């Protein structure tokens, strides 16, 4: 009973490390993956290493908390730097490295606990204090989420349209070009896209795009020169709105 109780945190560590490893090997990502793997990515190796270095009762809880985070960050970074000398750091490499470190440190911690004092019981919190802290956390979270929404809205309030004309094979080379229009006007918009060579019309497109939508087309185009640039003009309501052009110095 006593031995089981004093090692319950280490059992939880091993479980979290193995759970994280399984999640990676099973390819679980998104929100579920984040919940399963954040402990392994951040807190678990630091806790295990601190438990291995300082058995229960050797240092005060507050100092232990400092080492859990500081050593957790340190051991993750240092092991990653060592591993990348041999292997490429991908998700599996990280999971194997950090789970391996956790298991090794957990084993050392477990062995050292047989010769040390048992841990003190976890402290309890006043229920009113818990309610106040949860309320503070909720309000702070609301402030951050609200600020995030407002900042995104603010970025969305910038009304503009992107236009591009890209040579697929480099400027000056005969071949295909790519034309693109992306609407960030904050509302659906209609455009006339006109392609010309030295002012002579080659082709027109009428494009209607919703907010955030893009239109692209690839086509074979004649070779531009400096005197006869290949120009794409974006017109809105009959007015020139944007222009992009390709020129080639080498041919003219």
């Amino acid at each position, binding site marked *: 009973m006593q031995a089981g109780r004093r090692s319950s945190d280490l059992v939880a560590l091993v479980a979290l490390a193995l759970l994280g490893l399984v999640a990676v090997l099973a390819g679980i990502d998104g929100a579920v993956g984040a919940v399963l793997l954040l402990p392994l*990515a951040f807190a678990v190796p630091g806790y295990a290493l601190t438990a291995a270095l300082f058995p229960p009762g050797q240092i005060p809880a507050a100092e232990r908390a*400092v080492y859990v985070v500081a050593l957790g960050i340190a051991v993750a970074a240092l092991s990653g730097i060592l591993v990348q000398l041999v292997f*490429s750091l991908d998700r599996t490499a990280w999971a194997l490295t*950090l789970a391996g470190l956790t298991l090794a440190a957990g084993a050392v911690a477990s062995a050292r606990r047989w010769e040390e004092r048992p841990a003190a019981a976890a402290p309890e919190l006043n229920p009113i204090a818990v309610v106040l802290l949860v309320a503070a956390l909720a309000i702070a979270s609301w402030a951050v989420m609200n600020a995030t929404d407002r*900042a995104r809205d603010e970025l969305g309030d910038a009304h*503009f*349209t992107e236009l591009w*004309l890209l040579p697929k094979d480099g400027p000056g080379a005969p071949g295909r070009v790519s034309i693109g229009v992306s609407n960030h006007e904050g509302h659906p918009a209609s455009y006339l896209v006109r392609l010309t060579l030295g002012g002579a019309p080659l082709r027109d497109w009428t494009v209607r795009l919703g907010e955030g939508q893009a239109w692209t087309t690839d086509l074979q185009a004649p070779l531009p020169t400096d005197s006869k640039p290949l120009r794409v003009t974006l017109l809105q309501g009959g007015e020139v709105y944007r222009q*992009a052009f390709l020129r080639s110095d080498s041919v003219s």
Partner: protein
Amino acid sequence: MTAGGRLSLGAMPALTLLASIGLVLVAVGNDAAQRGDSRAQALFWVGLVVIYAPIALRLLSRSAGREERIGLVLALGGSLFLVKVLRSPVDFVRFDELGWWRATSDVARTGHAFADNPFLVTTSVFPGLPTVTAGISQLADVSIFHAGLIVIGAARLTLMLALFLFLERALRSARAAGIGVAVYVCNPSFLYFDAQFGYESLALALGIAFLLAAQRWSVRSRLDWAPDLPGTLAALLVLACMLTLTHHMTTLAVLVFLAVWAVASALLNGRSEGGTTGWWQGPALPAALLLVTAALWFGLVAGSVTIDELGGVFSRSFNSVIDLVTGSNGSKQLFSGAGQSESIAARALAVASVFPLLAAILLGFRRMWRRRDANPLHLTLAAAAALYPVSLGFRLTQASSETSQRASEFVFVGVAFLAALLIADLGRHRPRLATTAASLAITAVAVTTFLGGFIIGELQATRQPGPYLVGAEDRSVTAEGLAAADFASRHLEEDSRVLADRTDATLLGSYGGLNPIFGRYADLSVPRVLFSPVFDEADRRIVHGQSLAYVVVDTRLSEGLPVIGYYVESDEPGALSRRQPLAIASLQKFEAVPGVSRIYTNGPISIYDTSELLK
């Protein structure tokens, strides 16, 4: 902790709730600032006061328990970190942050650290922050932005707790330690600079954690083996390695601190805490550990980059101070950038914030002198505090201001110690009413120091969000700039060399995946390609010599002077001395350059393909 294992947090939960309301005020103030509402500043400043003042007042109180004080310093540090998050809650937007974003992205993309970084060279030799952030991002499948917030947020809380414990052990008082932390957060870098996604923000926490372990190692009263000895030694070794691989300046600062502490311990052996006798039992061993890791790392990997960066900063500072003293050059105009200047009230607050700190240092020294009970650690902390007035002198010139700013987070550990030593002694035997009045007065002074420190440390333009400003760091990042960077990442060849103004170069070099080019080519300043009225032979030489595939032009640069004093880099022609904005004709000259194509535009920002000129 009370009997029965119940954690006694006292007023901490209620004050944390109050701090969260302060955060709401800051958020509402930032939103108002974005809309140009005149109440924006008032809401922001009141929010800061609501966060700081009640916690500082409670930390001064004699009735708070130790657990409550620990909770309060964590609530203070966490809340002030969230103030920075509220400033830019969607993405990293600061120059340094985007440099570290690029380094982290490179680790996640290639699986390897130490990649060259086009606009923040130090990231290639200090892989601590990008590696751990990439690990969290890859493993938990969260964005680099969110992984970075987790790392820096955790580092901030660790810094607060470690500093509290370090001061508590030094001063043998939880109350004094809490006061010390409340003073430390007044340093000009604390609120934004040291909360940004950058190596120093992480290194500060590691540095103080290392000092805490060094203190555990040093403060022992016996020669015989102690159970925590191997663990402490191992922790010191791991932290020394990580600190060295994370940040040069913090490593050097901690090393100097330990060296002074070790020398003081050797000289005053009989007066050291615990009366140590063997050198290895005092701070000399942690100092030696850090010296070895630093010597190996700087000798084999990071030496030249460190010398280039820190040497440049220090030599510019030294020369500018010499010039000031000899009269070769005047002092800078305080509280004003090229484009903006502070209000009278803000200037008064900034100036007023300095005097209480100077007074605390002087009176703290006097107290130490009179009591003559200082141990080697006390003397070392006092020596660190003595550097504060020196650092103020560096504020007088433009070039040395950066040194002063960078020094503040280190010297404030000493300032916090002396202020705590002094304040904790005040009112010890006074009536309750007098003590309360004194606490309120001290809190008012602390609030002045806190707000004034922030004014000193952060440009007026960048404290809150707002409409676009030219050359104003965060305030110059707009949807158009982000869209251009996104276009570059999807359509242009990775690592293509590009010339752009500072803001667009930062975005293109990070989110865009391009390689921004700064500096000089032969005897020519690269940014002149943007500034020259016509595209001349010198511009052509630079484009060809630097293999610039693209030039990015933001026509908004012609709308005003840059707030930070320059458009591209600090030693560009006309930096810090321009009277007129760039002429629009200079920016539009690429329209008529043979062989140059405008391949992208979104209105203000255009990307010109200059690769034909490289043939």
